[in-house]
């Protein structure tokens, strides 16, 4: 019996880095876009720099989704 432990390990590592990466990037994008005051409420509109950083994060996430769809083909 040939159990493909290597494949399972690859799935785990790929999911950890790619899936975890997308989650972290999206969270960073949300964090940068949502500055809060001390009471946890919104601290006004985000600056252009914050918007740019968030856009970059979201664009990478969108590319990852696109790649995911591509792998289905």
């Amino acid at each position, binding site marked *: 019996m040939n159990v493909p432990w290597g494949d399972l390990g690859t*799935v785990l590592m790929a999911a950890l880095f790619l899936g975890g990466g997308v989650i972290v990037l999206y969270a960073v994008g949300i964090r940068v876009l949502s500055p809060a005051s001390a009471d946890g409420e919104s601290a006004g509109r985000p600056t252009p720099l914050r918007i740019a950083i968030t856009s970059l994060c979201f664009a990478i996430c969108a590319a990852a989704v696109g790649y995911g*769809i591509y792998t289905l083909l």
Partner: protein
Amino acid sequence: MDTLVIVVIITALAFDFTNGFHDTANAMATSIATKALRPRVAVAISAVLNLAGAFLSVQVAKTISSGLVDDAKITPAVIFGGLVGAILWNLLTWLVGLPSSSSHALFGGLIGATWIAAGGDAVNFATVVTKVIIPAIASPLIAGVVAATGTFLLYNITRRAAKGKVRAGFRHGQVVSASLVSLAHGANDAQKTMGVITLVLITAGVLGADSGPPLWVIFTSGLAIALGTYFGGWRIIRTVGHRLTKIEPQQGFAAETSAATVILASSNLGYPLSTTQVTSGAVIGSGVGKKLSEVKWGVAGRIAIAWGLTLPAAAAIGALAGRVAISGTAGVIIVAAVLVALAATFYLLSRRNKVDRHNVNDEPVASPKSKSKPSVASRYAR
């Protein structure tokens, strides 16, 4: 076309339908639970994406059994028996609200029916272990680890962000990741039915050997799984969305993103994992990542038991159905009649404790009557 072939095609599409409504929860349970999407909108989006997914690839459709059984020894009657085993197990687990694997039910049914028709030599038990049993144990663990890690990091990163915006942001993200799971589900699971129908058409001489699925097979398989998805397996959606753990949009996003990544990574490596087990594992992982005590381990344990039972139970039903079906036309008619009668019975039982889009997000309230004498469905779905 032979009558038996038509019966098997209809039964395969019926299985595809149950596969759709049984697995709606995989993609949309978390989005419905967090109210990122209204229930009807969620199942509509999932249905469309399942249909679209069916057209993306036909690679999996080339083999229905993935080497678990000797395809050369499969006859239409054997496939019919296997499908009956899979359908009945899917309906039973739907009735009690347990997210079991439709793929394992199909494999189990085919293994049981093939074993009874062609003997144990026709079943490749080593492949069963490596392609079904080990992935069944590994997939929820992998998805759980990824989701727990992602959830933990996500909450820490967004801890000091504006709470309202965070929730809104993750609601949007969750819709995208859940949609990707729907698309992957359509691409993977609809192909199994395409493979069944294609093999039946080849054995009946309608298609040549090594033929791929014709367009009408791709379309009907995609349509059946999409209709099933739209019908919505609300009982299982409630279990995954509410009873495993209390889900916030952040957790829903982490769970669905983890599930999508694990499914796509394993598909890419040609390693079949159950989308149901991956998603359930990811939902549990998202609960662990936020707070260990938030996971209802009793419910998780019942789900794990259902996973363990799926293959042998579907195999047993498939073997019984296959044994009767291979005896001739009368046998096929008897099995078909029993299937319809049991499906109707399960449906009527489900009406006694109805779960639909209107009450899928309600917390269950036990009435005095139901407290004293709970129905079978409500007892297991708790």
